[in-house]
């Protein structure tokens, strides 16, 4: 009996040992985090009060006068801005198979409002400049830089609708000029939260809720937490901002990474740190996006143009999201979305105007490169925006139609609802042939999800990926993942082996009992 107790004690002790070995044995992580918190809670104290500068004590007639005043002191800064993508809307980039390219908003197509060509007056409301209304805009004229839109501290400065980047007539330029400072969330968000013409249309993880988010929405930017501004991560030495969106960028450089603050092995558990070799931080730490307001997930241009009594109209869903609008077609919206996932090595390709498309497949407006076998690749969360958009079915080219026009009869689709005419004028403006035959093609666009980082308690659990039936990574089949994958053959023969073993011992045992009983009764 004693021996049985000692065996039980022994088993108990072993289990205890195994469980004890799992307890965290270091507080390194929290030390690192408190260092970061100490560093980032230091408030920036401006060295200049612009309201005291003599140069700014005057009535500015035009916004360009403000820019000249800025340059009169900050004599070289405009050169930095004029090197930036915020100004040029394109970047020099090497793309495998294409060589050196100059691509960006200026000349790439997307599957929302397609492209800016012909509609500049409307789109350049978000350009850091004044007067980009058509191809004639001169990118070398420094006074056309809009310094205030990024540096305004009043919150009253705004750019007017369809005014090629000029501010509203009622903006107090003197007040704005006297109250400039480091960019705040509102400066960045006024454009970046509303890309695509409305709140959260494009990104899904950048929207007006991020002006003042709670900890549940974004653990870094939370007003009751670290309250980080955009530029805390998107550092901007000499107006060269870190971070860019792969809808328009292509190369693995100037990226913002979690690692720049948190290091490459921030977890206490080594097994989690090992995951970071193949899994991006965002994959586990952004379990859902579009947490507050819906984001557009699909756009069907082919239904555009329906009129009621000869007039365009809108339809909204219960949340107030537009589900149909005559000038643009049908949309679907979703919120609290689980991202889709793909491999990404930091380089991307794009649909360039004039590329022939393979219409047997979904056309990718941008392609994120990567695969398991590529050591540079990690799994990242993405929003995939799916659309049906106009293309030239003879020349096999995606069409950029002219959309915006000031009035009817100028060929703008949003006024005339004539696809053929809009396509003709749009393609002419790009100097690309148009056959006169248009159809609609399915397209996809990949938007990496980087914001709306959740608290660690809400990060994706092991089981959400490591399970057979509904793994978040079910779509990535180029590698073996424990818990998700198994060999049907090995499992089948394994189970057969176990069943045979059980059957064998049971039958053997039964025969022994029967033989034993028979012997006893014979005796």
């Amino acid at each position, binding site marked *: 009996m004693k021996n049985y107790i000692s065996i039980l004690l022994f088993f108990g002790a072993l289990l205890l040992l*195994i469980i004890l070995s*799992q307890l965290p044995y270091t507080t390194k992580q929290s030390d690192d985090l408190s260092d970061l918190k100490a560093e980032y809670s230091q408030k920036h104290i401006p060295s200049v009060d612009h309201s005291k500068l003599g140069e700014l004590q005057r009535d500015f007639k035009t916004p360009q006068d403000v820019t000249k005043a800025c340059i009169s002191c900050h004599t070289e800064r405009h050169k930095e801005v004029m090197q930036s993508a915020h100004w040029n809307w394109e970047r020099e980039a090497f793309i495998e198979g294409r060589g050196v390219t100059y691509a960006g908003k200026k000349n790439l197509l997307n599957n929302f409002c397609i492209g800016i060509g012909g509609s500049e007056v409307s789109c350049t409301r978000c350009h850091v400049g004044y007067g980009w209304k058509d191809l004639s805009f001169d990118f070398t004229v420094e006074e056309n830089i809009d310094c205030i839109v990024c540096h305004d501290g009043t919150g009253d400065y705004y750019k007017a609708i369809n005014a090629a980047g000029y501010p509203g007539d009622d903006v107090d330029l003197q007040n704005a000029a006297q109250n400039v400072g480091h960019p705040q969330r509102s400066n960045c968000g006024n454009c970046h939260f509303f890309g695509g013409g409305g709140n959260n249309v494009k990104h899904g993880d950048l929207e007006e809720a991020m002006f003042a988010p709670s900890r549940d929405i974004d653990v870094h930017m939370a007003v009751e937490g670290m309250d980080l501004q955009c530029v805390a991560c998107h550092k901007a030495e000499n107006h060269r901002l870190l971070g860019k969106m792969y809808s328009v960028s292509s190369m693995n450089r100037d990226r913002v990474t979690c690692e720049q603050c948190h290091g490459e092995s921030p977890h206490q558990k080594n*097994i989690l740190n090992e995951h970071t070799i193949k899994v991006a931080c965002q994959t586990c730490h952004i379990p859902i996006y579009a947490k507050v307001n819906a984001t557009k997930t699909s756009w069907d241009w082919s239904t555009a143009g329906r009129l009621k009594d000869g007039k365009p109209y809108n339809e909204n869903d219960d949340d107030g999201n537009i589900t149909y609008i005559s000038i643009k077609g049908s949309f679907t919206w979703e919120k609290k979305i689980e991202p889709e996932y793909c491999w990404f090595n930091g380089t991307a390709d794009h649909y360039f105007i004039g590329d022939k498309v393979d219409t047997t497949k979904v056309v990718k407006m941008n392609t994120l490169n990567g695969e398991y076998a590529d050591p540079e690749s990690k799994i990242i969360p993405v929003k995939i925006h799916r659309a049906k958009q106009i293309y030239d079915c003879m020349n096999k080219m995606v069409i950029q139609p002219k959309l915006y026009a000031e009035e009817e009869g100028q060929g703008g689709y949003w006024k005339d609802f004539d696809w053929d005419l809009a396509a003709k004028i749009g393609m002419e403006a790009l100097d690309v042939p148009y056959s006169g035959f248009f159809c609609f093609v399915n397209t996809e666009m990949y938007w990496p999800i980087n914001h709306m980082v959740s608290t660690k308690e809400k990060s994706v659990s092991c089981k959400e990926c490591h399970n057979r039936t509904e793994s978040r990574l079910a779509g990535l089949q180029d590698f073996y993942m424990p818990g998700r994958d198994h060999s049907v053959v090995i499992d089948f023969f394994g189970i057969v082996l*176990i069943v045979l073993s059980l059957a064998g011992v049971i039958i053997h045992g039964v025969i022994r009992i029967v033989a034993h009983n028979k012997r006893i009764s014979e005796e």
Partner: protein
Amino acid sequence: MKKIYIYKAFERFWHWMQAALIIILIITGFEIHSSFEFFGYENAVNYHSSSAVIFIILIIFSIFWHFATGEWKQYIPTTKNLKEQIEYYLIGIFKNAQHPVEKHELSKLNPLQRLTYLGLKLLIFPVMVGSGLLYLYYRYPQQGGIHILDIGGLKVVALLHTASAFLLVAFLIAHLYLITTGQTITSNLKAMITGWEEK
């Protein structure tokens, strides 16, 4: 009634420790394989990894013990009485026949046990430990730069590990049943607990 001291203290400690570890490893391992849910995935992974490390330490000690004491000779395979032993399990056992091989200190394993345990030690355990270590530590060798470990992914490692696990379960089932085939139903179990076997 004659009693002989057949299993020494370390041997019994090693056996029961190994038994417990294998059972924990099987339960947690098949949970990681998504065969069922018991501890929760994260716990299962953690317990599995810790048990594996403890198991490896135990294996190192037991290898040392086997060579230091010369007990390794117990596992030298033999064909002597092999046929008789098989016939005993297939026929003799039902007729209450005598065990064909008598246990004594210098030879405590019958020829079938010798073969099975040798296979376990030379085949299943090395495959398990090897694939298990790769599973734990190979760190995607494309980046580790250890080219000899450049197996690209977990697939081969994982499948070997799983296949061996099934074999181990089958062994465990047979082993547990064969406990009851001693002189009496419980004499084998008692011997492994106390060290003494009644004759």
